[in-house]
C-alpha cells in the first residue's frame, strides 16, 4: 500500500514541477485564445458574455467595415516601412562596430540602447522632436512638416520611431552573428582581391542570413500587433491614417464596450500575423543559408 503511494508520488513529480507554469498558460493564454475564437461567432454583451450565435456574421461585418480595412492597410504599410529599413540600419551599425576597438563598449551599448526603451517614453520624446514648426527635426532640416497631424506623414512619423526602436534590437543580434563569421574566410577572400563591398555581399550577408531571418520573423509579428505608439501619439488619427489593427480592436471594446467586433477582429489579426510571418518561411528556403 505504501509503496504504491510512493510510486504515484514519483510518477506525479514531473507534472507537479510543471503545474504552476501550466496553470498560468491555461488561464492567460490557452483559455483566452479558445474563448476569443469561440466568442467571435457570437453576439457578445458589454460584460463579455456570449449571447446569440451568429456564425460568421461578425467576420462578414468587420471585413466589410471600412475602418477595419483601413486599419489592415495601415498595419501592412507600417510593417513594410519599418521591418526592412531597421534591419539594413542594424546590419550597417553591426558592420561598423564589428572590429573591437578601444571605445567599442561605449558605442556598442549606445547602438543597442533603443531596445531598452519603452514605447511610451520614446513616443513622448519624439513628440517633442516632431513639434511643428519649432521642433528640432523641422528646425534643423529647415522644413515645416506637421509630422503627427498631417494624414500624409503621420504613419511615416510613427514608423520612424519604430525603426529607431528596432534598429537597436537588430544591431545586437547581427553584431554577434557577424563576429562569429570565421576570420580566415574573410582573409582568404581579401587575398583573392575581394573589396569590402564584395565581402559584405558574398560572405557576411549569406552567413548572417539565419539571424536576419529570425529578426525579420519576430519583427513582422511585432509590427502586425503595433498599438502603443499610435495610442500615445495620434490615437489612430488624423482621419484614421494611423489606425492599426490592434488600435481598431482596442477602440471596439475599450471605447464602446463592443466585444462582438473585438473578438473576430482579434482572430483575423492573429491569422494575418500568422500568415505574414509564415510567408517569411518561403524566403527561408531560398535565401537563408544554414551552415
Amino acid at each position, binding site marked *: 500500500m505504501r509503496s504504491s503511494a510512493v510510486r504515484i508520488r514519483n*510518477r506525479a513529480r*514531473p507534472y507537479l*514541477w*510543471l503545474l*504552476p*507554469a*501550466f496553470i498560468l*498558460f491555461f488561464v492567460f*493564454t*490557452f*483559455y*483566452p*485564445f479558445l*474563448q*476569443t475564437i469561440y466568442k467571435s461567432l457570437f453576439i457578445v454583451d458589454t*460584460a463579455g458574455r456570449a449571447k446569440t450565435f451568429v456564425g460568421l456574421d461578425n467576420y462578414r461585418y468587420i471585413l466589410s467595415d471600412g475602418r477595419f480595412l483601413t486599419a489592415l492597410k495601415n498595419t501592412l504599410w507600417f510593417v513594410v516601412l519599418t521591418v526592412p529599413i531597421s534591419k539594413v540600419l542594424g546590419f550597417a*551599425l553591426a558592420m*561598423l562596430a564589428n572590429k573591437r*576597438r578601444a*571605445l567599442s563598449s*561605449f*558605442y*556598442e*551599448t549606445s*547602438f*543597442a*540602447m533603443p531596445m*531598452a*526603451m*519603452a*514605447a*511610451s*517614453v520614446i513616443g*513622448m*520624446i*519624439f513628440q*517633442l522632436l516632431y*513639434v511643428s514648426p*519649432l*521642433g*528640432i527635426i523641422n*528646425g*534643423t532640416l529647415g522644413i515645416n512638416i506637421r509630422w503627427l497631424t498631417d494624414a500624409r506623414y503621420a504613419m511615416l512619423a510613427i514608423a520612424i520611431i519604430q525603426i529607431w526602436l528596432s534598429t537597436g534590437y537588430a544591431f*545586437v543580434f547581427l553584431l554577434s552573428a557577424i563576429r562569429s563569421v570565421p576570420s580566415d574566410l574573410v582573409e582568404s577572400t581579401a587575398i583573392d582581391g575581394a573589396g569590402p563591398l564584395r565581402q559584405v555581399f558574398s560572405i557576411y550577408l549569406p552567413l548572417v542570413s539565419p*539571424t536576419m531571418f*529570425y529578426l525579420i520573423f519576430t519583427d513582422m*509579428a511585432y509590427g*502586425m*500587433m503595433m498599438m*502603443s505608439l499610435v495610442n500615445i501619439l495620434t490615437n489612430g488619427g488624423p482621419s484614421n491614417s494611423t489606425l492599426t489593427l490592434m488600435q481598431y*480592436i*482596442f477602440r471596439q*471594446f475599450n471605447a464602446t464596450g463592443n*466585444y462582438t467586433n*473585438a*473578438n473576430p477582429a*482579434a*482572430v483575423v489579426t*492573429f491569422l494575418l500575423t*500568422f500568415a505574414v510571418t509564415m510567408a517569411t518561411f518561403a524566403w527561408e528556403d531560398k535565401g537563408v543559408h544554414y551552415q
Partner: protein
Amino acid sequence: MNERRTTNIMMQVICVICALMVLFPILYAFSASFMRPEDILTTSHYLLPPHPTLANYIQAFTTTKIARYMGNSFIIALICSCVRVILASMAAFSFSFYEFRGKRILFALTLATIMIPPDVLVVQNYVTISKMGLMNTYAGICSIFLISANNIFLMRQNFLTFSRSLQEASRLDGCSDLQFFFRILLPVSRPVLITVFMNSFVSVWNQYVWPMLVTTKDEMRTVQVGITMLKDRESSAFGPVMAGASIALVPTILIFALFLRRIVSGMMTGAVKE
C-alpha cells in the same frame, strides 16, 4: 602601421558620431528636462539648457504621483521577474531532468504559447481579470506577465548542459529532488537566472498596453502609463513630460549599461537554430 592606426581612429570617430546620433533622442530629452519652458521650443533650437532649472522635476513630482508610479512599476517588475525565474526554472527542471508521459506534447504546448501574440488575448484576459475582481490590483497587472515560454526554453537549454549523472550522484548522497533543485541546480545556474531576471525586469518595466487597460485609479498606474498623463495631446508643456520620461528611463538604462552582455547572451540562445 601608421595608416592602420589612422583608419582605426577614423572608424572610432565614425562609430562615436553614429552612437551620439542614435542616443540623440534620449540625450535631448535629458537636456530638455532641465530647460525652462520658454527655452524648449524656440527658433534658436537649444541643445543644452541655456538656463538650467529643476522646475520641471518639481512640477512632475507635485502635479502627478510620479513617485508612486515608479514604486508601482518597481513592485510589479520585481514580482514578475522573481516569479518568472522561479516558475520557469521549475518547468525547465521538469523538462530536462525527468522522463514522463506527455513530455513532448507539453513542451510543444509551451513553445506554442510563443506563437500566440499576447496582444490578441488582451480582450479576453481583460474580461477574466475584471471577473476575478483584480482590476486596479498588483495581481491583476502582474497576472499575464508571470510566465514566459521563452524563459522556460532558455533555461531548459541551459539545464540540458548539466549531465543527469549530477542528479543521480546527489540522489545517492540522499539528496531529494527538492534539495537538488535548490541547493545544486539553481546555484550553479546563477548566470542564466540573472539573464532571465534582468530581461524580465526591463520588459515588464516597459509594458504599456496591459497596465493601462487594467488600471483606472491614478495611484495604481505604472510609470509608463502615468507619465503619459503629464500632458494631453494639444498642450505644449513639454518640460515636465521630459522630466518624467527621464526619470522613467533611468532604471532600464542602468540595467542595460551594466548587464548588456549578459542580457544579449541570454537572448541569443533562443535565436540560434539547433
